[in-house]
């Protein structure tokens, strides 16, 4: 297991390295530069050049890449061109919104999906199963930003139970912060919960066909007991994979939802930075998201071993 983890760790580092190259090269060819953007249409050429040199944009690409990657190793992501603040600081601030939102949505999805999936699987073919399946079919099909539009229309504009968006900051207290995240989290969670429900149900049904569930039933467990004690944990492997994927999807995929609810999260930072050609921010945020995906995948692997002892041995 340890060996396997080391191997995975190595491929994780290689992935990150290649990703950093790809990101850097792709963004280098993006037309437009931050200096002209910042100075607008009346700026003279020498002003732009002066700003470029101030931002370090006149150095060679290779030098800038080395500087960027080298800095990242020391936790220094460079300084934003347009904001003139350390990127790390900006990212940390945005993560304060994106990460809780992601976790909130994921928790919501899990909390909704588990009872629904278990119910559907244990009542396979019954009315409850049909209802759950119908709802999840819809849940998968509804674009989350469209759903979010109606949530805002109803809950913020019509009934004014929640604010239409924005984020007051955690300084105002935990619940104030969480309240601001309710609607976005619901919008994000709906399709994810639907997917998770379906995966859990089908995984459970697969496992319920396994011999050991029959053995458990022969021991004198009722269908439901067998589901809980023997099927659930075995059914977790595909579910864990999906949860891992969903985490990274939510972290980056919240971009659109962050726009709808004007939340100051990572997604909006990317959008804004790319519009302003604040490429060092874009590069760093993309790398961070890639890093998150890779690390989560890695954690999911560890979770496999936790769920399934067979994974613990050898490699």
């Amino acid at each position, binding site marked *: 297991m340890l060996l396997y983890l080391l191997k995975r760790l190595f491929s994780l580092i290689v992935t990150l390295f290649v990703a950093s190259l790809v990101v850097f090269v792709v963004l280098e060819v993006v*037309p*437009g*530069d*931050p*200096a*002209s*953007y*910042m*100075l*607008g*249409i*009346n*700026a*003279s050429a*020498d*002003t732009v050049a*002066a*700003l470029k*040199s*101030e931002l370090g944009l006149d150095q060679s690409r290779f030098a800038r890449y080395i500087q960027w990657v080298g800095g990242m190793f020391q936790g220094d992501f460079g300084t934003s061109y*347009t*904001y*003139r*603040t350390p990127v790390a600081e*900006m990212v940390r*601030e*945005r993560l304060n*919104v994106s990460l809780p939102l992601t976790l909130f949505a994921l928790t919501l999805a899990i909390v909704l999906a588990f009872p629904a999936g278990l119910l559907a699987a244990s009542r396979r073919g019954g009315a409850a199963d049909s209802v759950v399946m119908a709802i999840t079919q819809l849940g998968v099909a509804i674009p989350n930003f469209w759903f979010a*539009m109606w949530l*805002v*229309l109803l809950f*913020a*504009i019509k009934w*004014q139970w*929640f*604010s*239409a*968006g*924005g*984020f007051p*900051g955690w300084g105002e207290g935990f619940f104030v912060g969480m309240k601001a995240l309710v609607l976005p989290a619901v919008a994000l969670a709906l399709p994810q919960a639907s997917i998770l429900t379906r995966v859990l149900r089908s995984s459970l049904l697969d496992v319920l066909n396994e011999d050991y569930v029959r053995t458990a039933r022969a021991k004198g467990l009722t269908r439901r007991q067998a589901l809980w004690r023997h099927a659930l944990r075995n059914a977790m492997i595909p579910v864990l994979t999906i949860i891992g994927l969903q985490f990274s999807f939510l972290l980056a995929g919240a971009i659109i939802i962050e*726009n*709808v*609810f*004007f*939340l*100051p*999260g990572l997604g*909006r*930072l990317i959008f*804004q930075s*790319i*519009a*302003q*050609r*604040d490429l060092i921010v874009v590069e760093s945020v993309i790398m961070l998201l890639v890093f998150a995906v890779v690390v989560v995948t890695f954690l999911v692997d560890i979770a496999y071993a936790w769920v399934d002892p067979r994974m613990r041995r050898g490699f």
Partner: protein
Amino acid sequence: MIIDKRSFTALLLAAAFSGSALAAKTDITLGMALEPPNLDPTGGAAAAIDEVVYANIFEGLTRFKADGSVHPALASEWSIENEGKRYVFTLQSGVKFHDGADFTADDVKFSIERAKADDSTNAQKGLFENITSVEVIDDATVAIDLETPDGNLLFNLAWGDAIILDSESADNAATAPIGTGPFTFSNWVQGDRIEIEKNPDYWGEAVALEKATFKFISDPTAAFASLMAGDVDAFPNYPAPENLVQLEADPRFKVVVGTTEGETILSMNNKSEALADVRVRQAIAHAIDRQAIVDGAMFGYGTPIGSHFAPHHPSYIDLTGNSTFDQDKARALLKEAGVEGDISLSLKLPPPAYARRGGEIIAAQLREVGIETTIENVEWAQWLEQVFKGKDFDLTIVSHTEPLDIGIYARDDYYFQYNNPNFNELMAAFSKEIDIEQRDIMLKQAQTIISEDYVNGFLFQLAKTGVANTKINGLWENQPTQANDLTGVSWSD
């Protein structure tokens, strides 16, 4: 514990007093579509910077008032010497920067020289081109020498790009602005909001507000929702004109429609193959139904224009008659130019709604007369690179928001590449002219020349559509410059 009766009464009174003081709100939350990238107005062109700091945190020697007129600010008075080539300013006394540093003539010298310097990153460096030197006479007096007489100096010094910084804190202005204004910078939650607070030591007239928050809401739906949900009190530049009718119907809000300095034009590349022929440009001008664009893109807000000139300016003349909506004439002109039914143009559209929506309408209108367009939506950075710098375009839509900027037509290498020596001469003469009447005549001539040369498709003057809680007073109605001047803002109860 026994409470002394008198002190109890005093407590009650205090509570009652403070209660009544709270009756009128002293804080305000303003919505803005764009977040400023930083807060240094001398280091970037973003309008959002000025919208936060202008007149609130930073002040210059002169300043714009709501009607666009130039008024004294940090300079209490001035005199013009040496045949208009030397301005001597007397500075306000007792002015301190927010960090406690004294404001002196040295700061003026520093600020102007910083803006003029070779390595300056001032986006409007041109404003200072004519200045040869800045002389500190004493702490409270400073003189500016010019190369040629300039009637625009006081106007130029009122720009946000000409505000006065302290040499000690200037480098940090981007993130920790220290100015002389009535508000101090207090907090910036990036991506969400900036908060400013009343400056208790302000030299001038005290402001009514204790605190103001600028909240950044780029999404128009979210902007509407935030107003309806009461998250923001006012949206001085409301980004979605389509909702204004609804907001107007809501008794909680008032909608104020004013003017901006933004001439919204269909810029044409005068050197591109198809558009070098004036008949083609004229055909395009006649193919455009301005009112449909104002209605369709701006939901009726905006004033059609026939040249590059703001209708609220005293020297404005209505030249829309030069380019009436006449499809037959457009077709005839195209035929005359020999390109009938055989013309395809690129139309690059920057992000604002006036451009994206307007572009769609113009594309449809041009198609009616047989001009095909390929729409390409671009980001501002791309627009600057490709259109503005690279001149790689046929058509684009953009709003020129600088005040009195007809002079851009005299720049031969400007992105629409108009080149008319007569016009250039006129503008050169205009910049040296001090006589008001003469200037008026020249401006009218200039408007007529570019209108009749069909340099660009002149669409409409951008309206400033502000939405505010009905209890808020003192917000600017028009937008002579990019600013959310809060000095005169208060709540009525």
